[in-house]
């Protein structure tokens, strides 16, 4: 019982607000991941690199005297370039999307170090600079996070309703059809990857300011966290709203998925799990949720079930099998 006695609910409660604030930043990143993963049907691994790039760019520019908000915009632009690189590797050079993402991520490791002046981390103190968002000022951080997410969702919602956005959704859904309807699918993929990585890098810039430093490893596993947020958000959204879940709601739940993901992390850490196991835990959660739709469809129509049905029919003297009756 010593373990439970050592857990203090008050500590959990007090760490929640900061958890929500940080979760909102993961929510921003999840919106970027959603674009490639769900709309373009690409699991883009370059986000592990571009998240860090966004953080590195923001911190170095703030240290150089830039306004923190302007620095975030620069993160966004650099993220667009990262995504463009992946897109060009994939479309113009014919490299499979997963591998193209890995190559960009790998190259970005060097680039990120170079951005940070060949150092593994760079600090930016909220005492010296008026940062956009900081873990030292949690209530305004939450407000900023919510506002930013709202603005980003609005922009994405409007964009994917336009001609260009519709063409991008069609590209992800059915490339053959898209080509027959005159859509340049290569360009659409590059554009989608660029926007996605732009949003992810923006989130990286926010994260670096929030925690007060950029670190070469801050983006490690970002894709898995993003996928976790997307999946958690979608499952929750579909459970709560069902068929009333429109695109705006879906994006909102994806962002909320980021918050829930991080609150679970806070909870797990509060339960004194060795933080080393967090990545394992996240991977297991993502694997389970990705597998569920597949397993569910197979439980309805599996060979095992067919065999079982046939056996049952034989047991009745094979008559129902002859008639083809449903059991």
């Amino acid at each position, binding site marked *: 019982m010593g373990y439970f006695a050592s857990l203090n609910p008050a500590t959990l409660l007090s760490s929640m607000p900061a958890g929500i604030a940080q979760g909102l930043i993961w929510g921003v990143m999840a919106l970027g991941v959603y674009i490639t993963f769900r709309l373009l049907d690409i699991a883009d691994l370059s986000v592990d690199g571009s998240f860090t790039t966004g953080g590195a760019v923001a911190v170095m520019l703030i240290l150089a005297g830039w306004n923190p908000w302007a620095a975030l915009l620069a993160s966004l632009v650099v993220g667009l370039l990262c995504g463009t690189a992946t897109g060009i590797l994939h479309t113009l050079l014919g490299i499979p999307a997963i591998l193209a993402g890995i190559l960009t991520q790998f190259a970005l490791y060097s680039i990120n170090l170079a951005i940070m002046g060949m150092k593994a981390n760079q600090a930016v103190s909220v005492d010296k600079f008026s940062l956009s968002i900081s873990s030292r000022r949690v209530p305004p951080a939450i407000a900023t996070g919510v506002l930013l997410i709202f603005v980003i969702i609005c922009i994405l919602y409007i964009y994917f309703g336009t001609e260009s956005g519709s063409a991008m959704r069609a590209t992800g859904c059915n490339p053959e*059809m*898209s080509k027959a309807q005159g859509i340049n699918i290569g360009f659409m993929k590059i554009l989608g990857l660029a926007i996605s990585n732009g949003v992810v890098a923006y989130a990286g810039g926010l994260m670096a300011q929030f925690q007060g430093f950029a670190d070469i490893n801050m983006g490690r596993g970002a894709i898995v966290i993003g996928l976790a947020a997307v999946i958690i958000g979608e499952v929750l959204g579909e459970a709560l709203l069902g068929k009333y879940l429109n695109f705006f709601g879906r994006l909102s739940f994806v962002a909320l998925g980021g918050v829930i993901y991080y609150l679970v992390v806070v909870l797990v850490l509060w339960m004194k799990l060795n933080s080393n196991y967090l990545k394992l835990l996240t991977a297991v959660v993502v694997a389970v949720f990705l597998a569920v739709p597949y397993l569910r469809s197979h439980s309805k129509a599996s060979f095992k079930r067919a065999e079982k049905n046939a056996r049952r029919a034989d047991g009745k003297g094979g008559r129902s099998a002859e008639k083809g009756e449903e059991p």
Partner: protein
Amino acid sequence: MSAAMLELRHISKTFNPGTINEKRALCGVDLVLEEGDFVTVIGGNGAGKSTVLNAIAGVWPVDEGSILVGGIDVTGLPDYKRAALIGRVFQDPMTGTAATMQIEENLALAARRGKRRGLRWGVTRAEREEYRERLRILELGLEERMTAKVGLLSGGQRQALTLLMATLRKPKLLLLDEHTAALDPKTAEKVLNATEKVVGQEHLTTLMITHNMRDAIHHGNRLIMMNEGKIALDIRGEEKKNLTVEDLLHKFSVATEEEFSNDQALLSR
């Protein structure tokens, strides 16, 4: 006055050149379609029917020869650029539409074929009315389900929708690649009738592949039979009107000095 809507000038294509799988799929095909021609294409497996259509659509570049659609040389253009001039319906009903998008969104994508896709709204209120009218022609009740996801429709419905999308903005050329082959006979007939209606109304220049000889004879004003990457027979006018399956088989054996004994073609007589 009629103008050539499609001109194939001696096009050739070899797949996997220099390998053990080398296949000369098209050997110098020449073909001219006048405006309003409705040409049916038949031939055995590997005769080059689909290859011709894919060459015209620009799925890959041809090795030799040139392709003109509506008087424009498209030989050097990729498929998505040729789409401005060409409407396509595929064999697989899943290929022609985007399943996760709404019926009206699919139509709106088709309406913008060959145009710049910018930041204007993807579907406007004015065009919704137009789509409703167009969908009514199909007599499938789709005009009442315009915001339904296309993935919910049956194969026949999806194929009819694809046909509508291919002809929503009058194409210079309509390519139909065995577009009823994957449907049950009853649905296939419905889609064929809808095809006939749309092609007639819009006076579309059409190239339709079929594996069904009777359909090939019954529809269109001209019939082409392909064999070994070449056009073996080209029948039009009065001769086409009075054609029977027996005539066709006879003409084929005379033209190629071999029996037309493809199982598939025989079975679908």
